Structure formats: C-alpha cells, structure tokens
C-alpha cells in the first residue's frame, strides 16, 4: 500500500487528539485541518470542529472541492467573538504551523529578525497565539524540520508560552501550560523529557535519530520506548480520499515525497 509523507504526517497528527474528549479542535492550514477532520472521523468522534467561518459542524467539511457552505452539518453558530469564550474556557486543542519553535516549546508567527520597530521580515503578527497558549492545549505541525524552524536560541518574537522558567508568570507552574506534541516531516515529538524537554517519540520510516538531531537547533531527549511512526491504515487513507477528494494534500509538501523514504529514493 502506497502513501505519501503528507498522509503519514496527517495520520500521525490525527492521533494527538485521541484522549482530548469533547474539545474544539482547530487545525490551521490544510494538512492540520485534515488531521483534525480525520481524528473526528476515527480516533475521537467527540471532537468539535468549525467550518473555518462561523458554525460548529457535526461532520467535518471536506478540505477540497467544497462549492458552498449551504447544506453543511451545522451544530451551532460560533462567530469569532464566541470562539474566544471557548478558547478561554480551556476546552480547545489547536494544531498550528509556526515559523519558529524553540527548546521551550515557545513559538513565533509574528516577525523575523531586526527590531520590534522595524523587523527584518514582518510575518502575520501574534494573532491568537498568546491567548491560546495560556488557555489550552497546543500542538505544532512542521512540514520542514530544520534548524530554521527549531531555532538554537529563543524565538525572535515569543508569541506563545512554553516551558521556560525565566518567563513563567508569577503564580504559574509548568502544569498550567500544555504544549502537547510536534509532528514534523521526520518524526513525532512531545515535551515529556526531563523538565519538559522536547523529546523524540517516534521516527518516520527510514529516518534516523541523528538526522532529527542534526536538523534541530537544540538538544532533544529521546523516549525510552521510541518507535517507528505508525503508518496509515487503509481505513485512514480511504477517509483522506473522502475528506480531501481533490487530493490537495499532494500539493502541500514540496515534490509530494513518498511516506516510506526508500521508495522515494528508488523512484528518483
């Protein structure tokens, strides 16, 4: 059975919501949204999801080929102001793709380099990251695992809180912060190393630990039970075809690499 790296990442990411119960899951970007949708159809059918506009859905919309929001499986209206009511209640888990992540699990989507008055590269701005990170679980999706993303020092602009003693607000402990998992094109990580150190949990087929460490700007812990990332099941791949009928997932990673690396090398 053939599957792509994007599909492997989506299926791996879909597992991070398994034990969440009835939380609002928000996947920002096509692959994270597909992962959340897949989870809602498989590992956690209690998930709440929105239509990325203003309604909570009982069944996720497809991520490609949708012609209209008419006729979708609405459950309740949920405009942006009401999203914050949910966010601040803590009943949410977001899967997002930051430009930078540091060893504390802090992340950046605001700007790169320069100064606050004149950044070298203006990105989006902090958006909802500060509020999300102090309120509910957050996980990261990284299509290109590199030292540019996993930076050596702190993020250029710290948009989300992580496990950093120097920045811990008064009255807070690490147990108030929930940076859950990181799914990259090489591996799956969590923050369950010593003192919440980022830790390799599973390696994608054909990927070695050394490659992961070489592409990360800081030291990683390694799980004693490190495994190979579970490869997609036939049922998961069928559901991906249903949730993404136009195969938009094939256009998200450069050259759409195969899920098992040897196969990719043999082809090229």
């Amino acid at each position, binding site marked *: 059975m053939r599957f792509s790296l994007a599909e492997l990442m989506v299926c791996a990411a879909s597992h991070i919501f398994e034990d969440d119960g009835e939380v609002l899951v928000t996947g920002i970007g096509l692959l994270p949204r597909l992962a959340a949708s897949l989870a809602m159809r498989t590992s956690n059918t209690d998930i709440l999801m929105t239509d990325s506009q203003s309604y909570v859905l009982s069944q996720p919309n497809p991520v490609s080929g949708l012609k*209209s929001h008419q006729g979708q499986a609405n459950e309740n209206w949920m405009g942006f102001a009401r999203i914050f009511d949910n966010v601040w209640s803590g009943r949410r888990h977001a899967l997002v793709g930051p430009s930078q992540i540091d060893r504390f699990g802090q992340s950046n989507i605001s700007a790169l380099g320069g100064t606050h008055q004149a950044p070298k590269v*203006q990105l989006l701005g*902090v958006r909802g990251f500060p509020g999300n990170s*102090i309120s509910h679980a957050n996980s990261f999706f990284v299509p290109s695992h590199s030292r540019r993303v996993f930076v050596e020092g702190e993020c250029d602009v710290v948009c989300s809180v992580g496990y950093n003693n120097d920045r811990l607000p008064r*009255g807070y402990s690490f147990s108030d912060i929930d940076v859950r998992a990181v799914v990259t094109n090489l591996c799956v990580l969590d923050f369950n190393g010593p003192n919440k150190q980022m830790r390799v949990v599973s390696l994608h087929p054909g990927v070695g630990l050394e490659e992961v460490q070489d592409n990360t700007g800081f030291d990683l812990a390694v799980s004693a039970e490190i495994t190979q990332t579970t490869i997609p099941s036939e049922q998961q791949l069928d559901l991906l075809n249903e949730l993404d009928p136009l195969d938009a997932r094939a256009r998200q990673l450069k050259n759409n690499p195969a899920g098992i690396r040897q196969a990719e090398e043999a082809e090229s």
Partner: protein
Amino acid sequence: MDKLVSASEAVSVIEDGMTVGIGGWGPRRKPMALVRELLRSRVKDLTVIAYGGADVGLLCAAGKVRKVIFAFVSLDFMPLEPAFRKARESGAIEVMEIDEGMLLLGLRAGAWGCPFIPTRIGLGTDVLKNATDLALIDSPYDEKEWVAMPALKPDVSLVHATRADVRGVCEIASPDHYMDDLFVRASGHSIVSVDEMVPSDYFYDAEVSRRVFWERNCTQAVVHEPGGAHPSSSDPLYGFDIKHFKQYGELLSDGGYSAWAEAFLGDSESSYQSAVGGLEAIQSLPLPVY
C-alpha cells in the same frame, strides 16, 4: 432622525491625530469605500485599531498612519498583507501588537467604561515586552499576576453592514458580525456604510431584527455604498475579489501606493468602481468557501 450622509461628509469628522477603529476581519466585510474616502482626504497621524486587511495596508502605504493597534494584518489567502509588511519593515509606523482576544477585551472595556479588563493573555510572551504600555497587576483574589488590558476607545469607528434604515438601524446578514458591535460601542462616533438602504419596517421581521447587533443610538452616520466593501467581501451579497487582491499586491509591492492610487483610487467611489470593473462585477463575485 435621518443619519444618511455622503462618504465625504461622514469622514470629514475625522481629524489629524484621531484614533480610528475599523470593523471587519482581514479580507472580510471591511468599510473600504470609507477607507478610500479617508485616502482622498488630507487627514494624517491616525492611530488605527483593526483586525487588519487592505484597510490597514492602504492607510499605512498612504502615510496616514502614526500607529497601528493590531493582532494581525492579513488577506487570508495572501497571508501577508504587502503594504503593511513594507511599512513595518521600513520602521515607518509605531505599533501596539496584541493578541486577537486582547483587542476584543480592550474594545469591550472601552464600551463598558472600564479602564481595563484583567486577563491571562499575553503572560509569558513578547507581547508584554513589546507593548510597553501594558501593565501587570495583582489580583485581590489570587496570587497570580494578571495583564490589565487597557480600554481601547476609538474617536471614530468605521464599519460596513449589509443594510440599514436612515435612522441607523443596521443589519449584518453575513455569517459573522466579528467585533463590529464592540468597535461601534467603544467609540464616540460610528460611521456605518451599507450595501442597501431599507425602510424601517424591514426590521419588523423578528429574524431580521436578530441580525441587528447594536442599537441605532450607537450609529451616528449612515453611508449608502453599494459594493462599498470591495475588494473585501460582503457576504451574503458578494465575495472578496481574489483577482483584484493579486493586482493590489503586485502594485503595492512593486510600485508602491502611488501606483495603486493612480490605477484605481480615482476622485470618487464611482470612478473607483469603474476602474475595478463596475458595480455589477463586484456584486457577482462568488462567496468565499473555506
């Protein structure tokens, strides 16, 4: 009371140095005709508060802005707004960069007459380092520290609604009214542009009156601007103009503000609309699907 005025009459209340709140979200339901009227005016040194899109980009590019209070400036499908990006990277503007929810709380505090609203948001992040006017406070009820999000009080707010009567009863028929109600309530003077004018009895329908998110005594001026949200969307009437946004991006990146203004702005909304293909073309833009 009849509050129907022209766009130029409406924005003439805006003076140099004022704080202007702008409703909508990114490329969605922005009061762009009012923004264009501001671009044609001599006003400058504005502080702009917005969930920003081309509104913030254009005002910055035109040199109208001293400071932007923002969480993002984005066109969604074009994640980085080109004109805002240029303004930021050249260091031309002052900013208060805060979380989307902090912006909501600031407007709510402004609307409620509170000096601030306590929140956890911002703790542990560079928001506190960069927005130096944000204070941390103690709670009388716990041992934690809290961010005191100050009230945001625009002198004038600009929003775009679907329909209104001349008294300023405004319907937003779009799927989301965003924080427009908070912008209107927080500011001393609200100008609402609408696609369609309706008689007052239009609102007798209970379903319609549920789509009115603030009372008419919060609306000071109504401007009839069919297509006035272009190039942003005014769902359910028309979607955003992807093709135009791409042109907009190229012009502002390569030629700067004057290239865009020469190509499109014109001396009135009708000349703008002719330059972008006419009102009918705007009104037939398909609704966005997410």
